[in-house]
């Protein structure tokens, strides 16, 4: 307020000696700065204390699920399908099937009679089984030669460990693969050309030095002359039984046959276990001009005692692996959950698992002696009493015999 205004408003008699200090109107200024909502009493939302003149909050929209109008008639399966890329054939052209033999009239009558009496059984050994979809299903080509690559089986390759014939993915025990298999290779070049056989464990690379850098090569025999037995070839890497380590599950072991016209020097070193790790795709890349894959077979093995004895004989310890689960899903913890939750189960979810184990152990040590860790014969002898007296959650804890309740009596004391 200016002095002139003060003088105009206040008679001389009542004027003070000095001009009184009067606040300048600050509300309109704040309104000009922060907008008209600055001083509205807001009854409906929580007032933000941290900001006196509040500017409109940024609008937060949930992420929208966008429906492409071009796609909305498609089914879920169609939408989820990955675009197909045509795979590349790195091998030979597919063999032509033999021409169908015509059946004679007599044969037809016989077949008719048999099939009418449901006695017709076709000879399964005569069928040619070359379905590559199994190899694709097991991702054998992907992990051997890289993505989106395949080749046809054009040469018959028979591998058998005494009675166990290798097909495509059948399961063998590790103990049956201790000695080298019998291999018969079909002659396709009339005595010209050579074959090279690889035996590769696709999942067996467990060495720190060559981590994620290749596959375990179990056996390589190169330069087998066409039509000759496998002993005529040079054994580049001598046979080692596949070593699926304890707890790692089923390993795929593949036999790959390469065809080449000139003898090849592979220069592979297989003196130690680690030196047996080679990347097959890189190896194939370096000899691409010479080698062409012509046949493949594979089987699956898992751990048994023969693996341990083999590792011990090599002067190594057998590694033990344990499956690591993805941590189970649980909602984010809230200090005060909005929806009523069972307090014990809710708080248990966010407790440190080590602390829970510690508590189990302490409880056991307090209740029973170390040498007497047997589970009591009766789960709860005072059941009726406890049912009346104890809160339900506490009683349920006593009755629990699964999970942590099982661990109460059966965990190792270390």
């Amino acid at each position, binding site marked *: 307020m200016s002095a002139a205004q003060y003088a105009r408003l206040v008679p001389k008699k009542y004027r003070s000696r000095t001009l009184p200090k009067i606040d300048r109107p600050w509300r309109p200024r704040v309104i000009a700065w922060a907008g008209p909502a600055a001083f509205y009493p807001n009854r409906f939302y929580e007032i933000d204390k941290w900001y006196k003149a509040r500017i409109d909050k940024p609008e937060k929209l949930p992420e929208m699920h966008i429906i492409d109008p071009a796609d909305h008639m498609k089914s879920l399966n169609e939408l989820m399908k990955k675009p197909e890329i045509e795979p590349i054939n790195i091998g030979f052209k597919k063999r032509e099937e033999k021409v169908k033999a015509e059946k004679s009239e007599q044969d037809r009558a016989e077949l008719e009679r048999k099939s009418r009496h449901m006695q017709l059984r076709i000879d399964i050994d005569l069928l040619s089984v070359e379905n590559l979809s199994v190899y694709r299903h097991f991702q054998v080509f992907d992990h051997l030669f890289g993505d989106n690559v395949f080749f046809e089986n054009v040469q018959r390759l028979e591998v058998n460990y005494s009675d166990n014939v290798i097909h495509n993915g059948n399961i063998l025990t590790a103990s049956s693969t201790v000695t080298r298999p019998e291999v018969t290779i079909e002659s396709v070049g009339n005595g010209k050309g050579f074959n090279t056989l690889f035996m590769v464990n696709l999942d067996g690379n467990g060495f720190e030095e060559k981590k994620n850098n290749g596959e375990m090569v179990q056996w390589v025999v190169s330069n087998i002359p066409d039509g000759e037995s496998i002993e005529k070839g040079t054994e580049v890497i001598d046979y080692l039984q596949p070593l699926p380590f304890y707890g790692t599950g089923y390993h795929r072991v593949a036999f790959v046959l390469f065809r080449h016209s000139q003898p090849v020097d592979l220069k592979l070193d297989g003196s130690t276990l680690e030196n047996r790790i080679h990347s097959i795709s890189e190896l194939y890349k370096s000899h691409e001009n010479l080698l062409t894959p012509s046949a493949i077979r594979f089987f699956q093995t898992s751990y048994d005692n023969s693996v341990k004895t083999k590792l011990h004989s090599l002067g190594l310890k057998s590694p033990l692996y344990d499956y690591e689960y993805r941590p189970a899903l649980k909602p984010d913890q809230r*200090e*005060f*959950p909005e929806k009523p939750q069972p*307090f014990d189960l809710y*708080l248990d979810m966010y*407790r440190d698992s080590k602390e829970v184990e510690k508590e189990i152990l302490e409880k056991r040590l307090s209740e029973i002696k170390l040498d007497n860790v047997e589970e009591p014969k009766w789960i709860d002898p005072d059941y009726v009493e406890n049912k009346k007296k104890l*809160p339900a*959650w506490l009683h*349920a804890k006593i009755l629990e015999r699964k999970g942590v309740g099982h661990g109460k009596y059966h965990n190792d004391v270390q």
Partner: protein
Amino acid sequence: MLTKAVMTSLCATRQAPVNVAARGIANIPAHEYHIRFDQRVGRKRPAQDVLDRFKRLNNGMWIHAHPGRHKLKYMKDETWQKTSLYYETCTKEQCEILDKLMTPYWLRQKHYPNDPYSAYHVRHNINSPRVDDRGNFVRERKKILMDDITSQRFFPDC
């Protein structure tokens, strides 16, 4: 002369159970859901009903049994038979109201021997601020006030 035993038995008959109506939500007398002020003591009295029905954990969380869990049990489904036995947590607003109905004595931390609730008196890995807007401790951790980042690193439980 009457013997003492007869006297007590007489008293007992006189104090025989009075027929109390079931205490539904409608039958709670009005004076019980207010903060009552005791004139003799000169300060507020804790609400006895809250003490009977609820339990406060040391971390400030109130829990209570599921109301109506015994009602018409036979006509309710399997999951309800299980879930109705839970002791449930309260929301933040309910906890605040219940705290106001208590006296400071009941808000203090309590430690009992062989407490079945002992594992649940502390919370783990909560990262909301420990101090409210007035600077009071929200979850109990006495004596030291430090910034949240440091405290979360070295004191994950509280």
